Structure formats: C-alpha cells, structure tokens
C-alpha cells in the first residue's frame, strides 16, 4: 500500500504544477470464483486488479484518463491534461475540502471472509444441496468472493479510503424447457444463503413446467422484487439523474415538487446502508440520504460536482466511477423503494418472477413491452398454475401513479432494495 500512496503523492504533486485541481482515484481488488458447467465445476479463476483514474481541472476544463498500470501514471496524467484542453470550459468551484465527516460503520467489510477458492467450492456444494430438493437439472452457476478497496485523494488534501468484501452465488436450472435462475450477494458471507438460492432456482424451473396459456387482456399483475428492479432500474432510477433532468431528457425533468406518483410511494438513496455504502462519493463529496420521491412527490434529483457547478445546484454526493476512462458520473449508492406494505398476494393476479428484455424499454417515456419469465397465477398467498408465455406492456411512470400495494418484505438485490409490487389492470398479450 505504501507504494500506491507514493504514486498518488507523485500524481498530486506533478499534477498541481500544470492544473488548478488534481484528483486520483485508486482501486484494487482480489477475488476468486468458480463456475459450474452443467452440474460440475468446470472453471476456477482468480484475479488481482488495480486501476488508477486521474482527473485534472484547469480553467474550468476537465480532463480524465485511467490505466491499470501504476507505473504508467505520468503518461496517464499527460493524457488527462491533453483531454482537458479539448473540453468545453464550465463554471467550476473546486474539488471538495477535507471537511469533517461523521464516522459510521458502513458494514461493508467482512473480516472473517477468506478470499480462497475453497470458500467458493463450499458455496457451490450448498447450492447443489438446495437444488436437490427438486427434480431440475443444474445447467450452470457460480460462486465468488472478493476483497477490495478504493482511495480517493485530491490536491485540496482529501484522502478517503473505503474497503469492501463481497460474496456472491448464482444458479441456473432447467426442467424440460422450463428454466430457473436465482442469485444472491452481500458484503458478508453469512448474509447469503446458497442453500436457499439453489432450492429456489430449482423450484422455479420445476414449478414453471407445462404452463397454461393466458388469454390476451387486462390483468392485475404482481411483479416480484427482481422484476421491479429490472423495470425500475432501466427507466425510473436513471431519470433521477440531475444531468438527464437538466439536459431535458428525463421524463421527470419538469416535475420537481409535483405529486406525479402514488401517494404511498417513496424512493430514496441511503448511502450508509447497503453494498454501495460510502461516506464520501467517488469525487470526495460527503454523501447523504437523497429523497428522490417522497410520498408520491418528486422531491429532489442527484448531482455530481460538475453538473451541480454548471447549473447552480449542490452536489448530492452522487458521483460514482462509471464513466469512460473511469471518470466520475452521477449514480446511486443504495436505492430503496418503499411505501404502503400489505398482503398483496391474496386476490387473484398474474405473478411475474422476472422479465425478459427490460433493457429495451423506452428510457425517456417509460413505455415498455417485455416477456414474462417464471410467471404464474397467484391467489390466497400461493403461487398457482404456471403461465406458459405472456407479454406485458405498459408505461412504468403511469403504473407508478396507481400502485395497489407493496409486499411486507423487501429483497436486497445488490445495492437495490425493493419489495414486490402489485398493479391493477395491465395489458397482457397471450399466445
């Protein structure tokens, strides 16, 4: 680590000679994983990765570059400086200062987790044990563990580090031509339940076999947490980005302060609770809770420094490293969907476990049309007869205006934490 810190110091020192502001983002991770090919482990792998992202700002012009070779830091710095020369200048109020931030345990590092291949083979055995409860064939799966950390340092003296561990499993099954897939991941190994993941993956394939046809028409539909995550994740969450809002390509652009969703609905980003937890965002701004939607009202949007300075807003601590060359862009830490919780499973409805093709939704308008997977009827709290194939069409923003209810429990899907949701009278096309 000492060697890494000296590279960071070198970049900051050299960078300040040519730019107003300099920032270094350093990330490292080591991980191991195994892959099932059919029901047997076919591949076991390991990696040690590192990356350096450099950002310089000179006269309001921002340049970035990245490399996975710390020895190439000078070339990378030069490249960031050249890039800055071409960028359109903008209002710039400086990188963050090393202000005091409240110390909290982010609960993202499992000290007992061992990054060892034997840990993953044990998880595979548990997946198989769970899957053996049903007559489905295992066609694939994976187990992995990793440990890594980031350092964010800038020329104003911010030096922030954050370490995380991660354990994850997934299993794919088939029964005839009926398929099942389940997964789980967490920062803590004992928070995932591979036996249950295996059992559910096998159950889905077996239960969805020999499904009935469904007549084209309007139905009440329950979307499982996974399906909610797929549909909201591809359209709704991105529309909270202040960048999309200011650029007028977000559906919510002119709806700030408006009650345009169901009055029971709240959507927020909690940066202190979940796998995406961080005290500072990836450009060093202290994070805070962001209430995107509060009881149906569009309450606020998310900003990084660049967008905030440009449009006279405040950064919400929402920068993540996902841009080209590792540049910071607006993202989310841990996104929660909440609202009126009740039993949504009693009255008859179509239940969709996952959807196929959520990414083809119209990201601006919210119109979508997807195929349902592992769909079944649901009544009196029980999953009933499976539905062979059904296409669900709708507009996600329209749907959010009238939510019939949300399940009492939420599910953690990585850094997205959502309940199942019930909607009335959606359009379903049968075969």
């Amino acid at each position, binding site marked *: 680590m000492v060697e890494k810190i000296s590279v960071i110091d070198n970049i900051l020192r050299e960078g300040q000679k040519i730019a107003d502001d300099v920032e270094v983002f350093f990330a490292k991770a080591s991980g*191991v994983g*195994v892959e099932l090919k*059919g029901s047997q*482990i*076919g*591949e*076991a*792998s*390991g*990696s*040690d*990765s*590192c990356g350096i992202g450099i950002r310089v700002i000179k006269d309001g012009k*921002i*340049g*970035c*570059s*990245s490399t*996975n*070779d710390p020895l190439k830091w000078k070339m990378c710095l030069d490249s960031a400086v*050249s*890039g800055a020369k*071409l*960028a*359109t200048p903008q209002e710039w109020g400086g990188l963050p200062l090393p202000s005091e931030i409240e110390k909290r345990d982010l609960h993202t590092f499992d000290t007992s987790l061992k990054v060892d*291949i*034997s840990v993953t*083979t044990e998880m595979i055995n548990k997946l198989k044990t769970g899957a053996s409860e049903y007559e489905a064939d295992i*066609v694939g799966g994976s187990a992995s563990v990793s440990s890594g950390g980031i350092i964010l340092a800038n020329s104003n003296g911010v030096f922030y580090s954050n370490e995380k561990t991660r354990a994850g499993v997934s299993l794919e099954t*088939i029964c005839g*031509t*009926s*398929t099942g897939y389940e997964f789980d991941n967490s920062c803590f190994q004992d928070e995932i339940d591979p036996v249950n993941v295996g059992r559910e993956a096998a159950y889905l394939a077996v239960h969805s076999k020999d499904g009935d046809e469904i007549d*084209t028409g309007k139905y009440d539909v329950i979307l499982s947490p996974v399906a909610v995550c797929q549909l909201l994740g591809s359209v709704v969450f991105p529309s909270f980005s202040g*960048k999309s809002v200011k*650029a*007028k*390509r977000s559906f919510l652009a002119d709806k700030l302060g408006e009650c345009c969703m169901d009055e029971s609905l709240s959507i927020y980003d909690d940066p202190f609770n979940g796998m995406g937890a961080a005290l500072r965002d990836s450009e060093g701004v202290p994070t805070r809770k962001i209430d995107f939607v509060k009881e149906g009202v569009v309450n606020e949007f998310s900003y990084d420094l660049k967008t905030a300075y440009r449009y006279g807003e405040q950064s919400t601590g929402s920068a993540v490293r996902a*841009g*080209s*060359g590792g540049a910071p862009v607006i993202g989310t830490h841990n996104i929660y969907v909440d609202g009126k919780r009740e039993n949504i499973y009693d009255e008859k409805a179509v239940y969709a476990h996952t959807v*196929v*093709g959520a*990414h*083809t*939704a*119209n990201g*601006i*308008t919210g*119109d979508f*049309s*997807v*195929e349902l*997977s592992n769909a079944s009827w649901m009544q009196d709290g029980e999953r009933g007869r499976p539905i062979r*194939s059904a*296409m669900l*069409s709708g507009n996600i923003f329209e749907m959010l205006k009238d939510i019939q209810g949300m399940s009492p429990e939420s599910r953690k899907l990585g850094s997205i934490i959502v309940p199942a949701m019930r909607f009335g009278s959606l*359009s379903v*096309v049968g*075969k």
Partner: protein
Amino acid sequence: MEEPAFYDIRHVSGSSTHIEIDNSIVESASVSFVDTATLRVLGRKGWGVAIIENYSMKSQKEIDEYISTAMRYASVTEEEVSLGDAKSGILPVPAMKENPQDVSLEEKCELLLNIEKAAKIKGIVNSRANYTEGLGTVFYTDSSGNEYKYDMCRSGYSVSAVAKENDIMQAGRESEHTILGLNMRHKENKGLEAAERAIKLLSASPAKGGIMDAVLDQELAGVFAHEAVGHASEGDLVKEGVSVLRGKIGEKIGGDIVSVVDDPTLHEFGFMPVDAEGVLPKRTDIIKNGVLNSFIHDRQTLAVVGDGDAGHSRGEAGAVPLVRMSNTFIENGDSSYDEIIAECRSGILLKGSRGGQVDPGRGVFQFNAEYGYLIENGELAGMVRDVSLTGDILKTLHNIVLCAGDRVMNPGYCGKGGQSVPVTDGSPHILLKSAVVGGQG
C-alpha cells in the same frame, strides 16, 4: 509442481479513446490505457484461470508463478475437459481507409460535434453524440507452440436526439461502428436522421398488441437472427443443455427460405483474425434452407457436442473467453421488398432495434423495434411507436415465409456472461406470419 496438460495466454494491450458531447458541450475527451492478460491452464480435469494485470511487465518467473496458482485453482474443478482438433491460424487484418491514430483528438472532437450539431433542429430539446475507439495489440500463445499477434482498431460513433412537444417526448438514434478506419467524415446526415425520426415519433400512435403478420426490416431481422438463432446455436449452451436446438441437427426447424450464418471472416465489425484460443475463424452455416446444420463452438464444446466448427471463442481483455457470435445474418431470398409488403396485406412493418434478449433454454425471445408502420391492404399506413416482438424460437422459424434480396449488416455489441463483444447482425427484409407483437395502444 504438476505441469498443466495445456495452457494458453491471451494478452491485450492498448488504449481506448472516448469523446462525449452533450448539447454541443464537449463533456469529455479521454484516452485511457489497458494492459491485461488471461492465462488458462488445463489441470487433471477442468480449467484454472489467472487474470494478470500489467502482463507486459511480468518476468518469466512471475508468469510461472501464475501458472502454478492457476493449477492450484484447477485442482478444484470436476468437469473432464478435452479439446477438439481445430485448424490453428490467423487471417490478415484488412487495411484501414483512414487510421484513426493519424487524426488528432481535437479533429475527432470537431467531426463528432458536426454530427451532433446537425441534430439540433426545431423541436429537438437534447442532442448527444459519442465516439469510441479501441486500439489494441492482441498476443496469443499456447503450450502447443502456437503464437499469433495482431493489431486492430475498432471505432465508431452514435448520435441521439430527443424531441419534445407538450408532454410527449421521443428519441431517435443512429450509430455506425467499423474496423475499416475513421468513419465520422461527412456524416452530418446521420445526426439529422436521428432528429427527424424523434420528431416524427411524436405524432406516431402507440402500437396495439396482438398476433399479426409482421415485416421485419434488415436491422430488426438481424437482431432476430442473433437473439433467436445465434445464441441457441452456441456450443456451450448446447453442451450444458440450455438450448432448444440441442439434439436437432439435421432436423427441419424453419421454412425452406431460412438460412442463417455466423461468419467471423467477413470484414464487418464482428471480424476477428484469430479466435481467443488460436483457432482460424471460419464461416459456419447454422441453418441451411430450414435445416439445422451446425453449431458454433470453441475447442471444448466441439469435442463434447460436435456438429459444428470451433473458431468462435471470444473474450474481452482480461476475461475468460466464451463461445460467441461474430457476424450473424439471414441469407438473402429472392423476393423484393414491395412483394413482401404486398404479401403481408394486413399487419405491421417493424423498423430499427432497441435491442433484445433471449432465454435459449426455454426458447423464448423478446426484442423491441424503434418504430413501425401499420400495413393495410398491402400498403404502408400510419407510423407506430414502442412496438416489440416476442416468440418461441422453434415456432417462429417456421413462420418466416419470405426473404427479400436486400441484406444489410448492422454493427453493435452483444452481452453474455458479463462480457460485451463487437458483433454485426444482418438480414434482408423478412415476412413473419402470426407474430406476437406487443404494444399498449
């Protein structure tokens, strides 16, 4: 230390350039550097893999240590692996018309800005453009003594525009990617096309879902070839029992008119001079006149499944290669576009693609057109938006009744196992009977 039965190393080093323009603001113009290798060893049973960063800097001693680490990983594997015989070799990389490396980042910014500005017509509230360029040297070596090295540059741009009128917003998008050199000169028309489509879509009605006859344009039919046929023919899926095409070689699975090919040797965006395990790429005829003819394979799936060709192994830099498509297309038929529209009589013409997805084990696919036109009395009628198509692979192939002779190839990227690789999909216009069309009108 136990010696590996086989090992190979695929090393990728190079740079990637990105330019991002949003509402005529140059948001970023960056060049980044990558140097990474994938080392695979075959132990007594399966594969052990080590991903090695900064491979260029590693000594032979360090590489030997990576080999023993990978062997230790391999010791936990259970699947018996044998590798099928396939001809090793490399194809020449086609010459570029204008090497993007010879053009300054500044000039690339200007060219992209010209395309983006062309989209700023009345009614457009936001326009964006992106340029990406990946320049890399790939070096492959294996324990059988094969060694290949090539340089390739993939580049291209996309432009999108958002139109708004009252409360309605619609987007149009155009993109072009190539291995044949810089392609951004005199392309202002593409920005304009994206903008004009966005504006036209404002007055299009939402499509009405149901079962109807559909004409697919070249781009959407290409996505169909890729999603519905290509994925299900991938040897790893067939081997693991997650493809509805498993066990169907020699069977008639589609209409006589249907022939589907994956050809990595074509100088399209999915071209590769040598695959990720040193095999000489070759054209594979997946479906020939409606009969399932071949699967696409890597050496391992060729050995297990047979009936097809190796040479289809591909991987991102620093990732384990998988069986992947390259340039996938439906062959031309002998009908004309006009005949197809007339023959459809009453139905829908689906144009452009917003992407698609398939569950090859279940045999179900879904994809979305950018827009479409109703077909009434054998002629085009009103424009519709947000229209999608789903279906059952095996049923749908029998429902392709006409193919035109106007095949067009469209470059893009395909995702599988968390990796994205450049591909091209292509097709002529096709007529699909009893298609399941989705829409909420």
